[in-house]
């Protein structure tokens, strides 16, 4: 098993990143599935990462509770800002959540005494194991797949297609939207908390606009119609740059071109394309 040890030594961070990125992609899948374009996920990830890292550094709390706190805090914040914000739709909602992300980043940057400001937090113990990440991804995926095929999943799909008609079918559209937003924030926070404990170091700029766009890319490329889409999108966006490492200077360029080609030829995401290729009808709940 020597090769496995050396593989793990080199690539452990990458493998764990695929896991946390899947959680991030699932977090944006939740809102995209309701037709909501929110880009606050990077900020929620940052809140989770800082909350968990600070708990670990200041000591004494079991890792499980640290991670739970990292998921709960962003969920609470989402609950507070969600009510007024989710009345917006389309690009206006995107703008509002973008602004929220900037506020969070600047707050972390300026709360130097707690967060270390621009220098970030250094020396976070490496507590996250592959088992933690696998468990988190596994449980999340199971729950979201179940929900997707239950009443709640149907309601979310209906909201994405026609919000007004859904409301008139007796469905509390605002409650469903808030639920997706809050659960999405919890998942992003969970990803951030796990991520902080295998990267050794976190800084405010990791949770800025670029990260937000990256998360959105994972969700859209994979496809927002199924949790499987998020999984595929996250794996692709994380692994592609590594596979292209041999290209040297041209790496980012080729990476970008590939993503553009995918979105041009598969605007509904890779998951839909895959299903089409396998000539399988959509996994409709019809029996």
């Amino acid at each position, binding site marked *: 098993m020597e090769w496995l040890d050396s593989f793990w030594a080199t690539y452990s961070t990458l493998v764990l990143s695929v896991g946390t990125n899947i959680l991030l992609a699932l977090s944006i899948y939740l809102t995209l599935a309701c037709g909501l374009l929110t880009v606050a996920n990077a900020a929620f990830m940052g809140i989770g990462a800082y909350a968990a890292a600070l708990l670990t550094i200041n000591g004494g709390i079991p890792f499980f509770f640290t991670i739970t706190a990292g998921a709960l805090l962003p969920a609470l914040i989402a609950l507070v800002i969600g009510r007024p914000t989710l009345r917006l739709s389309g690009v206006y909602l995107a703008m509002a959540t973008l602004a929220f992300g900037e506020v969070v980043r600047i707050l972390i940057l300026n709360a130097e005494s707690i967060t270390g400001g621009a220098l970030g937090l250094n020396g976070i113990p490496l507590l996250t194991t592959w088992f933690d990440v696998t468990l988190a991804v596994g449980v999340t995926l199971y729950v979201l797949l179940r929900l997707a*095929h239950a*009443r*709640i999943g*149907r309601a979310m799909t*209906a909201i994405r297609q026609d919000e*007004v008609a859904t*409301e*008139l079918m007796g469905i509390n559209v605002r409650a469903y939207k808030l639920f997706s937003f809050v659960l999405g924030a919890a998942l992003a926070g969970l990803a951030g908390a796990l991520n902080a404990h295998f990267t050794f170091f976190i800084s405010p700029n990791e949770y800025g606009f670029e990260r937000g766009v990256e998360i959105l890319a994972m969700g859209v490329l994979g496809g927002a119609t199924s949790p499987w889409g998020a999984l595929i999108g996250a794996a692709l966006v994380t692994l592609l740059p590594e596979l292209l490492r041999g290209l040297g200077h041209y790496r980012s360029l080729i990476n970008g071109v590939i993503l553009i080609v995918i979105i041009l030829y598969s605007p509904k995401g890779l998951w839909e394309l895959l299903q089409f290729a396998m000539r399988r009808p959509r996994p409709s709940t019809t029996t």
Partner: protein
Amino acid sequence: MLTLSSVSKHFGGLDVLQDINLTIPEHGIFGLIGPNGAGKTTLFNLVTGLLTPNAGAIEFFGQRLEGRRPYQITRWGVARTFQNIRLFKEMTALENVLVAMVDETRYGTVRALMRWPGYRDAEQRERDAARGLLARVGLVEKAGHQAGTLSYGEQRRLELARALATRPKLLLLDEPAAGMNAAEKRELMSEIVKLDENGLNIMIIEHDMGFIMGLCREIVVLNFGQIIARGSPAEVRANPQVIEAYLGSDGDAVSSPKQ
């Protein structure tokens, strides 16, 4: 059953509905007609909570509706179809109906997660009920088809099945026969008559006079946001004001309100 008292609605400077007083008794099919822009759909939107009146009160079986959220009003028993069809086009016909089904089994999200005993049975019962509704509008063979791929007449019938899934006490139909051929219209009429016989209260907006005169016990005529006539089909047809609203009076051809 449904009472509108002094209801007004304006968009900016445009008075769409002015001081509407209307009481609709229980049982029977009720027609709402009038030229384009008379405020018929706005009235439906006020009753279903999509719009809030600027003044006045709306009461449904003693329950005040104005200012309530649409989903709440639906749960109290008001369902509707739309003038421009609003199905969930990328879902199957069956799924469209399932979205609207009343969750009477109370199998919740937690049970769905845990695959609680009885969850599958409850789900199966719900599917059977949804199929029953599709059968009622003659769409049971199309249950697995995407709603967007159905023909125009089928889409209208699917909208009807979906509205019925919410278990309404009052059904609002906004131009249900629009775009249907003669045979489809006849079928729809007999279906509406059946719903009426089962005790459902029905209100119809429709431009097809044969359709509306044949079905309705009573008709209200709206013009420029005001009620200009109310009565049986025969009375409304003979009312000079109604004729004027639709055709314009002699020597008034140029300023006719109809377009």
